[in-house]
C-alpha cells in the first residue's frame, strides 16, 4: 500500500467516523421520527463507505441495498402509515432518567474501551503479514458462504419466510 493510499484511508476513516457519530446522535435526539430515520440512513451510508475502506465491497453494497434501502424504507412506510400528530409523539420529559442514562452510557463506553484495550493488547505480539491477507473479494465470500456456511445460509431463508408470514399475520386486520 502506498503512502497516498494510506493517507487516503485515514482521511476517509476520519470523515466517515465523524459523520456516522454525529448522525447517530441526531437519530436519538431528534423529536420527529421521520428526521431520525433519514439520519439513520446517513449513518448507514457512511458505514457502507467504511466497509469499502475495509475491503468488503459486497457487504458495502448489501448495506446500502438492504439496510439503507429496504429496511429504512419499511421504517418510513410505517412512520407515515401511523400518521402521527405532534402530540402523539408523547412526553419525553424525564430529566432524572435522561441524566442517569447519559451517565451510565458514558460509563458503559469506558467499559467497552477498556475491554477493547485489554483485549487487543493480549494478542499484541501476533505476526500479521499485511501482504498475505488477501482482500476478501466477493469470490472468497461466496466460496465460504456456499460451502462451509451453507446450512446457516439456508436457515436464513427459512427465517425470512417466517418473518414474512409473521408480519402479514400480525399487521393484517382480518385474515
Amino acid at each position, binding site marked *: 500500500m502506498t503512502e497516498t493510499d494510506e493517507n487516503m484511508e485515514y482521511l476517509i476513516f476520519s470523515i466517515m467516523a465523524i459523520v456516522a457519530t454525529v448522525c447517530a446522535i441526531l437519530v436519538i435526539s431528534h423529536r420527529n421520527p421521520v428526521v431520525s430515520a433519514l439520519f439513520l440512513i446517513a449513518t448507514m451510508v457512511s458505514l457502507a463507505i467504511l466497509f469499502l475502506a475495509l475491503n468488503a465491497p459486497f457487504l458495502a453494497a448489501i448495506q446500502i441495498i438492504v439496510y439503507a434501502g429496504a429496511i429504512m424504507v419499511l*421504517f418510513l412506510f410505517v412512520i407515515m402509515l401511523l400518521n402521527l400528530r405532534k402530540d402523539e409523539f408523547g412526553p*419525553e420529559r424525564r430529566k432524572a432518567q435522561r441524566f442517569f442514562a447519559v451517565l451510565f452510557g458514558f460509563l458503559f463506553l469506558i467499559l467497552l474501551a477498556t475491554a477493547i484495550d485489554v483485549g487487543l493488547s493480549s494478542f499484541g505480539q501476533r505476526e500479521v503479514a499485511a501482504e498475505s491477507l488477501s482482500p476478501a473479494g466477493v469470490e472468497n465470500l461466496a466460496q465460504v458462504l456456499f460451502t462451509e456456511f451453507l446450512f446457516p445460509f439456508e436457515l436464513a431463508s427459512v427465517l425470512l419466510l417466517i418473518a414474512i408470514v409473521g408480519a402479514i399475520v400480525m399487521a393484517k386486520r382480518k385474515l
Partner: protein
Amino acid sequence: MVPLSSYLILSAVLFTIGVLGVLVRRNILIMFMSIELMLNAVNLALVAFSREFGAVDAQVFVFLVMTVAAAEAAVGLAIIICLFRNRKSVNVDDLNLMKW
C-alpha cells in the same frame, strides 16, 4: 492502514449511542431505530476484525446479522402497527399492561 482499535472504538461509540437511544427515548419507533444502530455497530466491528485477520468468516456473520435484522424489522414494525391500532400511541410508557 487505520489500526483495528480505531474501528473498534468507533463501533463502541455507535453501540453506546444506540444503548442511550433505547434508554432515553420513549417513542417506540426511535427505540427500534436505536436497536438497528447497535446491530450496525456490531457489524462494523466484525468487518474490521475480518480485515485484520484476513478471515472471510466474519463477513459471513455480518451477512447473517443483516438477514436477522431484516426479519426483525419486518416483525417488529408489524407489532408496532398492531400496538398503534389497539392503543393509539407509540409511547412505551402507555404500554404498561404487563408491567409488574
